[in-house]
Every structure is written in structure tokens, then in C-alpha cells.
């Protein structure tokens, strides 16, 4: 039996290791376009780009693959998936046949499409990070386009190194898509008080060697970095006629429209909570958990056993300068937001309620409440605002009572 995994990010690599743990004998081929052995992406924007040594963290030991008989194909792009004859063809024209295929091709950064955009650096891979680290070390004035998590991490890290930093956000608020508005506003105020110049409702019109032209002003910069979001790498799957809609459509068992092809990580658009609801997540939690479920399901499929569903409590984190943002659950902008009272200075906890039930928690510098949030959201009975108020905002005591 042979399993091919396309993509050696967190999802693909974890799937390979999980498969090997479950079965000593199956042939496992892990295919990566990149030249580096599989590495962790989150530290790139938090650590690597601000370090002179530019070290990076591996997902598994360098010799793990050899020792565990996992065929790691680096510098190998998959040119074609043939779902009829069950093989993939690499750019070297090498053919690898599979019984089951896992697509974990991740995502790529959106490209800026303005004059001079080739000047702007991006950050997705270790190569990008090593190049950016050199530029940041030399730069005095840094302008970051995009106020999402990556943009905020780059901006606040650069500010911590005493660079003059401007953050340009096209929408009305940084972190606008991801957290409660009141939470985003608080984070924004802290960044501004620490010296980051945040320009909202601000579109970059063009870039040149001296900086960025916007509708209202010129932002001087000797380094421009763009972090304007990512889009899933669906081209291969699309050519293989798999069902596509904002990523690759999978069922709860993480199978695509072809039952022998699984999709995991950033590209998998999976059913979430209700039958009609769907979600696609770009996170470590999602990549890891989906990888393990896909591995288990491949073995189960082979043994005619029942397959396992993926029903996550999504969590995510972002380190921005000295701030640690931790999010759990899936908040919606139209949810009711409740700021938790009686909390330690310098921290913030915002609860999201939908139809009166707790659905998500955003915390700032409050890991305890984040962990509590994960427990509360996995509780069988929904948590109501009354429950929170009964304990006067002490989530830990509430969790203890529920146990």
C-alpha cells in the first residue's frame, strides 16, 4: 500500500509521521517544492526575521524521514495528479503511484497589484524570511502593507527593534476579519502608544525606493513589506477535477470528491457545526488535527473500519511585540461581544456570544483565560453569559465547577 502526500508544511509532515506511527509497512512519499527539510512557519514572522542568526525550527528531526522510511522528495513540484490511474507526476517526470493521496498544498500570499509592487517584500517561506531578516536589520523606516496577523507581527517586531514603523490597512481597523472589534481597537491603541503609525482606510497606490504613495499622503520607507493575506493553492486539485469552492471541498472525514484523495490544512474547506456551514482555517491547530484524522482514516479505510469526523474547537495565536493574542472558537462580527471584568491590568478578554451561547474568546496576554476558553467551548452544555456572571468573570472557577 502506498500513500503520497503533496506538501510538506505542518499538515503534510504531521500526516506522514502519524501514518508511520499507525502502520510500520505502508510506503509513504512526502513531496515538497521547497529545498529545506520541513520547518515550522509560525516562528518565521515572530522570531526568524528579527534574528541575526536566522535560525529556524524544524517540525521533525532532519534524519526522522530516513529512520522512519518516509521518502522525502525535496525540490519536487507535482506537475499532475491523475485520479483515474492513481498516480502523481513530479517535475522530474518521476511517477509515484498511490492507493491514497493527501493534498496539503497550503496557500500562497496574495500579490499586490500596484506600480512598484516588486519592491515590496513578502513573507511566506524560509527563503522569504532569511531575505527579509537581512533587510530589516539594515532598515530605518519600515512600512507594512496589511493589518492582519502577519502584518501586525512584522510591524510590532520591527518597532521593538526601534525602527520607524508605519502600518497601512485598507479596511477601517487592523485585525478586522479575525477578532472582536473592541479587541482589535485595544490592540491597535497599544501598538500606536508604542510608536507604530497605523493608517486605516488607507490604500497603497504605488511604491518606489523612497516609500509608498497613498491617496492622502506619502509614507517614507526604506523597506516595504506586504502581508495582505493568502489564497489556497488549488490548481493541482482543480486540474484533477476535484470539487473546489474556496479551497478543496472535503466531507467531515476529510475526503475530497474522490474518496481516496484527502485534503488537509489551509486548503481544506470542511463542514463545520451545521450541515450547511463550512470553514477553511489557516492555523497550526487545524493542520495538526486534520493531519492525524486523515492518517487514521486512511488506515481505517484500508481495514474497512469506521472513519472519524473532524469537529474542531479552532484556536490560534499571534505574538506581536510583547503582546500575546490568543483566539479560540469561531467568532462572527455580528456576535454580541462581552468584555470580561475584574481582570489583571494589561490583559483583555472578550467573549463572543451567539444566540446567547458562548462561541469564541479573544484574549490578550491572558493565557489562562485562553485555556479556560478551550475547556468551556468543549463543554457539552453551552455556556451562557449567566454562567460567566455567576463567577464574576473568574473563568477558572467556572471550568472547575463544570468538571
Amino acid at each position, binding site marked *: 500500500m502506498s500513500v503520497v502526500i503533496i506538501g510538506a508544511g505542518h499538515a503534510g509532515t504531521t500526516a506522514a509521521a502519524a501514518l508511520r506511527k499507525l502502520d510500520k509497512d505502508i510506503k509513504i512519499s512526502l513531496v515538497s517544492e521547497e529545498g529545506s527539510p520541513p520547518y515550522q512557519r509560525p516562528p518565521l514572522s515572530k522570531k526568524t526575521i528579527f534574528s541575526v542568526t536566522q535560525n529556524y525550527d524544524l517540525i521533525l528531526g532532519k534524519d526522522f524521514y530516513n529512520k522512519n522510511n518516509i521518502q522525502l522528495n525535496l525540490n519536487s513540484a507535482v506537475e499532475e495528479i491523475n485520479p483515474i490511474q492513481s498516480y502523481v507526476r513530479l517535475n522530474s517526470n518521476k511517477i509515484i503511484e498511490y492507493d491514497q493521496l493527501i493534498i496539503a498544498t497550503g496557500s500562497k500570499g496574495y500579490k499586490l497589484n500596484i506600480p512598484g509592487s516588486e519592491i515590496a517584500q513578502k513573507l511566506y517561506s524560509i527563503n522569504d524570511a532569511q531575505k527579509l531578516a537581512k533587510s530589516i536589520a539594515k532598515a530605518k523606516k519600515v512600512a507594512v502593507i496589511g493589518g492582519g496577523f502577519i502584518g501586525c507581527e512584522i510591524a510590532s517586531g520591527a518597532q521593538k527593534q526601534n525602527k520607524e514603523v508605519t502600518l497601512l490597512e485598507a479596511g477601517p481597523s487592523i485585525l478586522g476579519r479575525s477578532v472582536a472589534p473592541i479587541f482589535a481597537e485595544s490592540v491597535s491603541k497599544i501598538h500606536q502608544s508604542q510608536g507604530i503609525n497605523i493608517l486605516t482606510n488607507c490604500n497603497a497606490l504605488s511604491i518606489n525606493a523612497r516609500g509608498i504613495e497613498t491617496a492622502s499622503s506619502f509614507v517614507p520607507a526604506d523597506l516595504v513589506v506586504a502581508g495582505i493575506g493568502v489564497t489556497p493553492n488549488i490548481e493541482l486539485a482543480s486540474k484533477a477535477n476535484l470539487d473546489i469552492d474556496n479551497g478543496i471541498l472535503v466531507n467531515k472525514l476529510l475526503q475530497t470528491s474522490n474518496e481516496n484523495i484527502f485534503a488537509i490544512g489551509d486548503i481544506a474547506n470542511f463542514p463545520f457545526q451545521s450541515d450547511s456551514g463550512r470553514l477553511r482555517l489557516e492555523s497550526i491547530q487545524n493542520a495538526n488535527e486534520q493531519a*492525524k484524522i486523515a492518517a487514521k482514516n486512511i488506515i481505517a479505510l484500508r481495514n474497512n473500519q469506521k472513519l472519524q469526523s473532524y469537529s474542531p474547537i479552532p484556536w490560534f*495565536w499571534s505574538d506581536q511585540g510583547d503582546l500575546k493574542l490568543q483566539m479560540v472558537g469561531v467568532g462572527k462580527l455580528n456576535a454580541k461581544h462581552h468584555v470580561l471584568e475584574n481582570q489583571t491590568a494589561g490583559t483583555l478578554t472578550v467573549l463572543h456570544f451567539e444566540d446567547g451561547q458562548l462561541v469564541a474568546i479573544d484574549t490578550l496576554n491572558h*493565557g489562562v483565560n485562553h485555556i479556560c476558553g478551550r475547556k468551556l467551548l468543549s463543554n457539552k452544555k453551552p455556556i451562557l453569559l449567566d454562567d460567566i456572571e455567576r463567577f464574576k468573570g473568574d473563568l477558572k472557577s467556572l471550568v472547575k465547577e463544570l468538571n
Partner: protein
Amino acid sequence: MALVKYILEDSSEVTIEAQVGQNLMQLAIENNVEGIEGACGGSCMCATCHVKVESVNGAELGERSEMELDVLEMEIDEVASNSRLGCQIEINEKIESITVRIESIQSI
């Protein structure tokens, strides 16, 4: 440099030389030590790198942070006084050797 001894769940032992600045989670992963997962990449957000510290030579380990203690309390049934998250133990110049017992918690 310090010597780190991991006692695995099958009671076998692995000893690895660690450089200053490395933490016990990343060191275990890079050396394929079984039972340490590091599902959150060392952000003190899970307990898949849980270990019990058996002994330390050369220096005392600092106190567990409130965050680390809370993660342990939330994720582990019985937290011992020497329960730690491997990602939160960083090798410094003073530590000569350290022995930890792996008590694995898997993320799934």
C-alpha cells in the same frame, strides 16, 4: 552545553547534548525522541511536551510561570511538583545536566 537525559515511556533512556538557548521540546523533536510532540510549536498552549524533571545539576530551574502551571492543570490529570512543559525549560550556561521523564499527552 548541557547533557539532557530523556527517560522514555518504555523506560529506555536517550541522552543528548544541548546548546545554550535550546528548549527541551525542540531538542527532543530535532532528535526524534519519542513521546514529545510540541503541537503548539512551543507557545505554552498545549501539554504535548509534558515531562517530569527528575534531577538537575549545575543550576536550579526557575519557577513555573502562572501560564505554564495553568496549562498543566488544565491538560494533565495529576500535576506533580516536578511536572513541566518541555518547551518552557531552556538550557542556560549554568545547567550541566538534566534528567526528565516523558509523560506523553497527545493532541488527539
